[in-house]
């Protein structure tokens, strides 16, 4: 096997993951999280951006934002398996931060191999963060799909809108996908560059912020062209396995939190003179949730390991991971609310925070069925016309 049996998840990966778990538990447990993001229940509230910037600075100091940056660029150069471990813990804590957004952008920049991309990675090493602005209005990041156009050169000018930009109000840069006659390019733009307007979205997930970002004659710093026109779509495709895998890791962590929280409730909530976990209508679906999480988790590490050691299998493995994680997220969320009963249907019961984060994750970068259709093309060949 080209892959190490242990997914490359050895002692150091375990240590970092355990440290992250302790950190989130100590600094952002369930009640702290509720305090941080759950204050305003009004469904018509304006978009919010609730996070703990002090805590974030600690995370930056711990080096967790530069794990995926190569060593030669003064990053840590961790394996994808190691990064997945951290993302799992962030998902478990439903932690509000640009951690996932930034690591996804890092993988795209790593795939660029240009000086512009290296400069952007240098910004990450300096403690800044970047989020991808690569999705169009109908939700696609593939092919030449984008609603931002690029024109001219030195400087290239961007016009249009990027949608579904994650944690847009928390980051320092956007990595923008824009198309011109010469093809798709990727451009690094400071969030406060002239002509950039961040329009926050009203979203369900209370643990993130999302925006569409408008570009009006935004001049790109020539030193910040991460992928020249014609190269951008290939770069994104190359980085997608990592993006799918890390998004799936977030879901796996959140799913495990949902499982353990629901199991704890089932062990303690008494109805009909039994803890409700006595009843198989509760017990067995919880077991089924556990199995789905285990499936998804195994596939996440398999995909991470493929990224690290067997790159020609990485896309296949990553589609498997996110497909399973997305369906698992739906199932785990559904049962967590249902088994918390009337209490679970109230705002004050904190399970809706993970639930809504999972809904967000489920549909980002493709749901279960999307990934299965990609896999079908890979495994069975395209559909005959």
């Amino acid at each position, binding site marked *: 096997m080209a892959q190490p049996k242990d997914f490359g998840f050895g002692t150091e990966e375990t240590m970092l993951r355990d440290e992250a778990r302790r950190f989130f538990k100590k600094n952002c447990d369930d009640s702290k999280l509720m305090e941080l993001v759950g204050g305003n229940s009004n*469904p018509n509230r304006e978009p919010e951006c609730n996070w703990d910037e002090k805590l974030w600075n600690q995370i930056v100091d711990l080096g967790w934002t530069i794990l995926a940056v190569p060593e030669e660029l003064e990053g840590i150069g961790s394996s994808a398996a190691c990064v997945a471990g951290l993302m799992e813990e962030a998902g478990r804590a439903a932690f509000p931060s640009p951690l996932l957004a930034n690591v996804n952008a890092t993988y795209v920049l790593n795939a660029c191999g240009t000086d512009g991309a290296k400069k952007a990675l240098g910004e990450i090493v300096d403690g800044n963060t970047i989020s991808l602005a690569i999705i169009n209005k109908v939700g696609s990041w*593939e092919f030449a799909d984008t609603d931002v156009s690029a024109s001219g050169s030195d400087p290239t000018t961007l016009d249009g809108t990027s949608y579904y930009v994650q944690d847009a109000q928390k980051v320092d840069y956007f990595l923008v996908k824009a198309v011109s006659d010469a093809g798709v390019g990727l451009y690094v733009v400071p969030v406060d560059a002239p002509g950039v307007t961040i329009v926050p979205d009203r979203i369900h*997930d209370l643990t993130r912020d999302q925006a569409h970002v408008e570009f009006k004659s935004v001049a790109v710093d020539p030193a910040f062209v991460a992928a020249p026109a014609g190269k951008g779509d290939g770069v994104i495709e190359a980085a997608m396995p990592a993006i799918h895998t890390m998004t799936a890791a977030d879901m796996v962590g959140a799913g495990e939190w949902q499982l353990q929280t629901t199991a704890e409730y089932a062990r303690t909530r008494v*109805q*009909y003179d039994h803890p409700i976990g006595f009843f198989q209508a509760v017990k067995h679906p919880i077991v089924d949730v556990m199995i789905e999480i285990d499936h998804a988790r195994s596939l996440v590490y398999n995909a991470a390991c493929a990224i690290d050691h067997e790159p020609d299998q990485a896309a296949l493995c990553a589609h498997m991971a996110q497909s399973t994680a997305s369906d698992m997220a739906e199932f785990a969320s559904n049962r967590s609310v249902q088994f918390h*009963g009337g*209490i679970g*249907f109230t705002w004050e019961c904190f399970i809706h925070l993970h639930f809504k984060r999972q*809904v967000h994750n489920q549909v980002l970068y493709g749901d279960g069925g999307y990934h299965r259709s990609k896999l079908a093309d890979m495994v069975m060949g395209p559909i005959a016309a």
Partner: protein
Amino acid sequence: MSEKAVADTPEQAEYRAYCKEWLANNKPGSYPKVTQSATVPGQKSQELQDYQAAWQKKCYEGGLVGCDFPKEYGGGGRTDCQRVANQELALALSPAFPNDTALRMGAFTLLEHGSEYIKKRFIPKMLSCEEMWCQGFSEPNAGSDVANQETFAEKQGDNWVINGQKVWTSNGEWADWMILITRTDRSHKHKGLTYFVNPIKENLGKTVEVRPLIKITGDAGFNEVFFKDMVIPDKYRLDEVGTGWSVAMTTLKYERDAGGMVSPGVGGRAIASAAAIPLSEMLAKSPLVNLAKNSHRNGKKASDDSAIRDRIIKCLIRQTAFSQTLRRGAVKGLVDNPSRIPLQIKLVASENGQNTSALGLEIAGAASTLCTAEKETMYMGSTWASAYIASFGGTIAEGTSEIQRNQIGERALGLPKSK
């Protein structure tokens, strides 16, 4: 081979004609502009409440509400005519009646278990909506397990002193009265319960507190109700002390069977429109199909993806199957066990709703992260994700899906009790 099996009795036929005529001559006023409370999200406005209450009163005075109740308790003294009125109200697209708790189960419970005083005093104003009602059954530790009541009523002379808390109380913010189950004896679970009618509004801010409870969606939709040394007279008791459980069973039976006086807002539109449109057209216009035609996935329209088509059709078949099962429930020759279909209505309807919105959420794709949507991709006025989040109200309230399956297994199939 005709409609004989569901044909009207002469009384029903005459009454149906009367209802049609009355509804042609009597219309609700214009729908209020402000329907949502300005201060509590998700709570309806006073304007809408007043509008609905006025319409219920008018219909009551016209003889369309409570027509099967005895005349001495404010009813119309008819036999099996309420469903005729309900059908005609639905066909006329009547607005909803607000006094839901009273109409679905409260009035029937009082009729079966109330003293002469109670029946005369309360039923007429339930029907006319002069007094609004809510239900005080659920408690923090009595959700599925209704008998596990902790709200305590202590006898003091001719009065009862009530302490405790109710929760998930719909209409608590509007109600004058509550049907209330309490514990009066801690040594017997089921035999230690007693049932009352309880004047909550007149004691608000004194011995009763009603607090809106925020749902997972952020909307207010029900309440917590607290009693602190609340004193009510013994004449508000139904049946004997210690028989509250059997009274509660009556209430739950009517709640489950959707009683005899469903609010016309519920399901009425579906009945009315199903009559007019062939099935194929109705399905082609369904929100899921519409959504798929306006959503993209993997470089094409979602409606051109066979896997999505398969799942949409599965959903539409289930919806059709459900309505055909309701239709079959009224055909004697095709029902082996009379409780089998009624028992499954709540379970199937709520799970269909949840599965439909879960599918829509997935088809809508990245847009499902958003709280807002464009009109052509909406579902009943909200996003699919919002509908999905709200759908757990259906699978949890009034007996969770798990409790429903117990009851169906026990009552329709004779399986042993699981508790």
